[in-house]
């Protein structure tokens, strides 16, 4: 079973040093902004800030910390674009809250669980972004299940690899 139900006492809660807490999201934003110059399709399929949000939220297992992590990373991502600030902020706030809430109840330490969780949250993120962008900002958006699934799978694969790398920075409380 990739996902196992675990009681609150059984799951481990991690924390991160301040440099990691600030540096990793910044690095993710930097890579996300820089790589499309060399690999134009990168921005179409991958969302590194989202993966970092999910990772921190699941590792901390604290919904409030998770939602604030998502909000800050999302807002910073919005600031680099030209669309109104808050689109990614709202979407990642929800993802951060959801991922940390899920982390409290489920053991999501293994690769299979991480794959499914990342895929699911990518779709949730896309759906929230799409809804807010169309509903509030009146942006012309087209929803494509094919693109959503492909990008979700790509992010899930990258997430599994990335999460194992980021596990090195975890500190037990």
């Amino acid at each position, binding site marked *: 079973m990739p996902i196992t139900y675990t009681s609150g006492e059984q799951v481990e809660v991690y924390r991160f040093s301040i440099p990691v807490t600030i540096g990793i999201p910044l690095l993710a934003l930097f890579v996300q902004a*820089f790589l499309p110059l060399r690999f134009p399709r990168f921005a179409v399929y991958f969302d590194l800030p989202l993966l970092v949000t999910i990772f921190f939220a699941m590792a901390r297992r604290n919904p409030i910390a998770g*939602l604030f992590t998502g909000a800050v990373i999302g807002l910073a991502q919005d600031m680099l674009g030209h669309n109104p600030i808050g689109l990614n902020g709202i979407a990642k706030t929800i993802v951060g809250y959801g991922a940390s809430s899920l982390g409290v109840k489920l053991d999501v330490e293994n690769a299979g669980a991480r794959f499914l969780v990342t895929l699911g949250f990518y779709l949730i993120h896309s759906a929230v972004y799409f809804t807010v962008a169309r509903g509030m900002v009146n942006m012309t958006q087209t929803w494509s299940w094919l693109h959503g699934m492909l990008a979700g799978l790509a992010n899930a694969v990258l997430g599994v690899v990335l999460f194992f790398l980021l596990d090195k920075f975890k500190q037990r409380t």
Partner: protein
Amino acid sequence: MESVLGRYRNLIILVGVLFLQVLGLATQVKRGGSDPENTRLIRVWAVGAITPFERALVWAQNGTGNLWHNYFYLRGVRAENRQLKDQIEQMRLEQVRLSEDAAQARRLQSLVAFKEQFISRTVAAQVIGSSGSDLSRTVYIDKGENAGIKRDMAVMTADGIVGKVLVAYPSVSQVLLISDQSSGVGALLEKTRLQGVLRGTANGEVVLERVMSDEQVPVGETVLTSGGDQIFPKGLPVGTVTKVGNGKDLFLNIKVKPAANLSKLEEVLVLVEKQERQATAEENVRVRAADILAQRLPSVPDKPADVNPAAGAATVGSTTPAVAKTAAKPTGAAISATPAPKYPSGTSNVSGASGTGPAGKPTANSAASSSPAKKSVTAPAGTVPTSKPDATQTAPTSEPPKSTDPTPPSAPDNPNSQPPAAESSPQ
């Protein structure tokens, strides 16, 4: 009550944070849609945190690349250099031909008091980053307000237009690409002269809108800027039509492939200054194809100094009386001291200027006709041929040859030269 708050504390905070963001979003939308200038102060932080790293990485990357390409990897440079020189020759000849066309266009424009826009100053900039999202097709360049860049300035490459400056920060600027769905560029089709609006789509394609569906638009036609947006000067290349289909309402859906490679931008030019001035016709044409060719061809061997000038003049006059008539005006016997063209201007100039003959190559006819004349005309050494007997050939005016050329026209050595009357007639 307290227990309820404690129980739903997380949810309440989530709702509160979301509410604040929605409020902020609504404020931005009310203020001015997606105009990033409204939130400039906040965006400066993120840009200031990210772009220094991007700038450093691009600098390091370029440094490494330059070291490799400039010092180690020089294989084939010599051959490439030779090839480029040939290309320059061809382009110079082409330039002469085009300058003739441009001069003609300016004359016509001046007749109708046409005001034209000129690119007077550009700033080269390096692309250092992007927004990182396919929903916001923007890039960052490493020049900002400090380099004179302001909002709404046109950004282009040698291939074509790229976009416009959306926000100018002190040391970086954000450029909105033409493939973004919020961009709009006034464009026209080169041959059919149909005008439309160029827009980006959600999936990053570029389409030309507002062209009526009863118009015929061929695939492959070039799209240029129309100048109607007051950002891009008229006539800059935009791209080529790749697909034409029926769009919404009565308009066509024309897909355009941008001329500039928007997905791999490295260096761009920002148009920081453009001038609008009245079109004026140039009085004289400075360089002609024949002159360029003449400079490149081997010169006539020097004659001894004791040649009789009068004999030279007489020889010229006897072989080409029509040209001698024009040439004798300013200096009389000095014609003999005027250098003989290294290449007969009559045939080669027509070929080069009109583009009908092989560009830059002397024709067999002209080469043959130059031989007898070279024998009869005296040619002092070290002088540059300046003959312009056919200067008016490409100009569709009936004016006589102007005396703007500082040196008098030399005696042509081509016995097959046309008389002035024929030369000055419009083509």
